[in-house]
């Protein structure tokens, strides 16, 4: 048996007694979990909205595919996917950091997240929630800006409250 191994207990216990190493408080882990959850939820919301926006944009520019693609690429608010990707990366990093000891299948989380975003975006756009959000919701300002920048004609119900 190596000498170092014999000393492991003493080394660690001395550091604990001298308070060189301290336990993180429970609140540290609670805050970490809340931040992780909030990060993932916000990135999911932004991503869902983005999918809805793309579908909306595809509809509002008519049948010319090349034109629509150009319009989407030129008018896309790039900060939203960037924020979503950063949110996802930070969320997973935090999950790994705070929950490093338990089995988490990150592949399933990522695939599930992407599927949820696409399906969520499609459903939101299909049931018209997207339109309601653009008129009254928190995304109203951003949506107005997007429509103005791309000279997209507003429907008759635009100003309806």
């Amino acid at each position, binding site marked *: *048996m190596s000498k170092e191994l014999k000393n*492991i207990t003493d080394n660690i216990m001395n550091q604990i007694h001298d308070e060189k190493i301290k*336990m993180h408080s429970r609140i540290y882990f609670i805050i970490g979990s809340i931040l992780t959850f909030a990060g993932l939820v916000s990135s999911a919301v932004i991503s869902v909205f983005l999918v809805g926006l793309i579908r909306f944009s595809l509809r509002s520019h008519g049948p010319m595919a090349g034109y629509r693609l150009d319009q989407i690429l030129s008018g896309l608010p790039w900060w939203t996917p960037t924020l979503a990707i950063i949110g996802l990366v930070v969320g997973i990093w935090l999950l790994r950091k705070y929950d*490093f000891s338990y089995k988490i299948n990150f592949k399933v989380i990522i695939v599930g997240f992407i599927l949820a975003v696409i399906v969520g975006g499609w459903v939101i756009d299909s049931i018209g929630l997207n339109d309601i959000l653009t008129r009254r919701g928190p995304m109203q300002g951003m949506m107005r800006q997007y429509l103005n920048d791309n000279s997209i004609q507003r429907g008759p119900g635009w100003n309806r409250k």
Partner: protein
Amino acid sequence: MSETLKLTDEEIIDRVRSNERDLYSVIIERYKNKLLRYAINLVHDNDHANHIVQDSFIKGYINLNGFNTKKKFSSWIYRIVHNEAMNVVKKYQKEVPILDDFDFESEEDTLKKFEQKETAVYVEKCLSSMPLIYSEPLSLYYLDDKSYEEISDILRIPMGTVAIRISRAKKLMRNICQKN
């Protein structure tokens, strides 16, 4: 002290968290030899393995409030050692020495023990010749007596994958050890 020895790991952790910090030494004593052997099987270097085990106990203590006492402490601490060892493996990928003469603590010195020890050393040498993805679950299963479920928790792979890797590892082991 004898009372504390009867406590489960999870009960001890609960008491350490409620300010009985000295009890953490019981946990260290329970696990340090097992974890050292596990770390050596991963990195094949005594010094690195010692540091890995020490750092893992320190990380474990710092994050003790993040441990869920409804789960097994042993899987939790093995996972920390696995993570630390993987960092070392990545860092020193090109210089992985083969372990020749490491001896573990043994209080008995009978012939039987000696033979068992020789077998263990032989098995460890065979293990060190195998790729890590096979040697790790095999050593956890046979040397550390972990169940498929625990190995799945430690390595974060599905139980089916654990079974497949152990099965392949056994075949590899047979081939490698027969050649030696």
